[in-house]
C-alpha cells in the first residue's frame, strides 16, 4: 500500500512526472518532490490557507488534495505566479503597504488576492475581509493586507477604464 504510483501534471507550466505514494498530498508533493517550498503547510486540514495554490486556475488547499487526484491537471504555485509576473502589482502593493511580516501566510494571501482581483471591479474592504476569511495571519493586523489588495483593485480599475469612477 505504500507502493508508489505514477503521476503526471503541469506545474507552473512545466510537465512533471513522478512516482508517489497515493497518500502524499499535493502540498507535500510540491514541497518535497518538486522543492517548490513557497507553498507552506500550517495545519494540514484546510483551516489556515497557507497552502493555497491554483488548480486548473482556481484556488484550492494543496493539503486537501492528494497528488494522485491532480494527475492530468494544471497547478500554479506562488513561484509560478511570481515568475510569470501576473501577481507583480499585488506583490509590490504588499511590499509597499508592509502587508507581511514573517511571510508564512503570504503565499496563500497572494493566491487569494489574485483570485479575488481576477474577478475585476473594486471590492469593498468588507468584501476583501470576507474573501480573506480563510487565510490565517498571526503577525499583521490584516489591515495592511486589505489596504494592499484595495490599492491594486483601484489601480487596475483605473487602468482598465481611466474615466470610470471606482465603486
Amino acid at each position: 500500500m505504500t507502493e508508489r504510483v505514477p503521476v503526471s501534471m503541469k506545474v507552473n507550466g512545466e510537465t512533471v512526472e513522478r512516482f508517489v505514494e497515493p497518500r502524499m498530498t499535493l502540498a507535500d508533493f510540491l514541497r518535497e518532490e518538486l522543492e517548490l517550498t513557497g507553498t507552506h503547510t500550517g495545519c494540514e486540514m484546510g483551516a489556515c490557507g497557507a497552502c493555497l495554490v491554483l488548480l486548473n486556475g482556481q484556488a484550492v488547499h494543496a493539503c486537501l488534495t492528494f497528488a494522485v487526484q491532480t494527475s492530468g491537471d494544471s497547478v500554479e504555485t506562488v513561484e509560478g505566479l511570481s515568475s510569470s509576473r501576473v501577481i507583480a502589482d499585488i506583490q509590490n502593493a504588499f511590499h509597499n503597504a508592509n502587508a507581511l511580516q514573517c511571510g508564512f501566510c503570504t503565499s496563500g494571501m497572494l493566491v487569494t488576492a489574485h483570485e479575488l482581483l481576477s474577478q475585476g471591479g473594486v471590492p469593498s474592504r468588507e468584501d476583501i475581509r470576507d474573501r480573506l476569511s480563510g487565510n490565517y495571519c498571526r503577525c499583521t493586523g490584516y489591515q495592511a493586507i486589505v489596504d494592499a489588495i484595495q490599492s491594486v483593485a483601484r489601480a487596475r480599475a483605473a487602468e482598465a477604464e481611466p474615466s470610470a469612477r471606482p465603486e
Partner: protein
Amino acid sequence: MKARAFRYVRAASLDDALSAYAGADGECSYIAGGQSLVPALALRLQAPDLLIDISRLPEMTGISLEGDTLRVGALTRHSEMLSSPEIARHAPLLKAAAPFVAHPAIRNKGTFGGTIALADPAAEFPAMCLALDAEFEIAGVEGQRTSPANGFFHGLFDTDLQPGEIITAIRIPGFGPNDRCVFHEFARRRGDYAMAGAGIQATLIDEQVESIKIAFLSAGPTPMRAPHAEAQLTGGPLSGERIEAAQHALAEDLEPEDNDDTSAAMRMHLARVLLGRLLTRLAHPEHGQERRQQ
C-alpha cells in the same frame, strides 16, 4: 498528520466506480471534492484501503432545468452555487446559503453531492435540501433510485445511502413567481460551523403564507425541518404574533445538544432568535432576501 497508506483508483465511469467499490478488498471510500474526507484521513480518523475517485464523472456534472425542476449534478462545486445563473434563478436559497459554506478555496473544490452524503448536521446545503423538498438521484450496483430529502437523513452522519451507493444528482423544484427565501446563520467567525443556522423558502400570495418550509442546521443530530413552527405560520400573514408562536413551537422541532462551550439551551435560544429575524426579513422583501429574478 499524514494519512495511512491507501490504494487509489480513478473511476472512468459511474459503472466503473460502482464495480470498483463492490469488488474492493478491504475498506473503501469514494472521494469527490475531498474537503471533508482528506482531513479525516490526515487525522487518521478514517483509514480506507482504497480510495475511488469519482470527481470527474460526466454523468454527475452540470446544472439544467427540466420542466419545473432544476437538476443539479452531484459534482457541482459549492462555488458554482454563487456563480451559476441557473441556481440564482431557480434555487436562490442555495445561493443565499453558499457564502456561509466554509471558505472560498474550500468552495472551489467541495461538491454538492459530497456534503449531502456526509450529512454533517452543521452543514448548510443538506439543511437547504430539506427546505427545498429536494430529491436525490442515487446510483448503486442494483440500479438507479430517487430518495426525497425529507426522510433521507436518519441520524448523525447516517443517511439513506447504502454502502457503495453514489448520489448522482439533486432535483430541486423550481422557484416560483410568488416564492421568497432567506438564509442566515450565527457563527463565531466567517466560515466556521454555525452555532445555529436556518433557511426558509415560502410562497406568499398577498402577503399570506400559502406554504413555508423552514430548515435548521446545527440544531440536532441531522439537518432539521421545523414542521411545528411552519404550522404556526401557514395560512396567515407573517405577523409579529404568528412569528412569536412559530418561535415558541420550535421547541418541538429541534433537538440541539450540549457541545463545547455552547449549551443546548443556548442553541435553542439562538435558533428562536434566528427564526424571528429571518421571518421578519421574509416579511419585508426590501430588506435583503431573494426574490425571483426577472
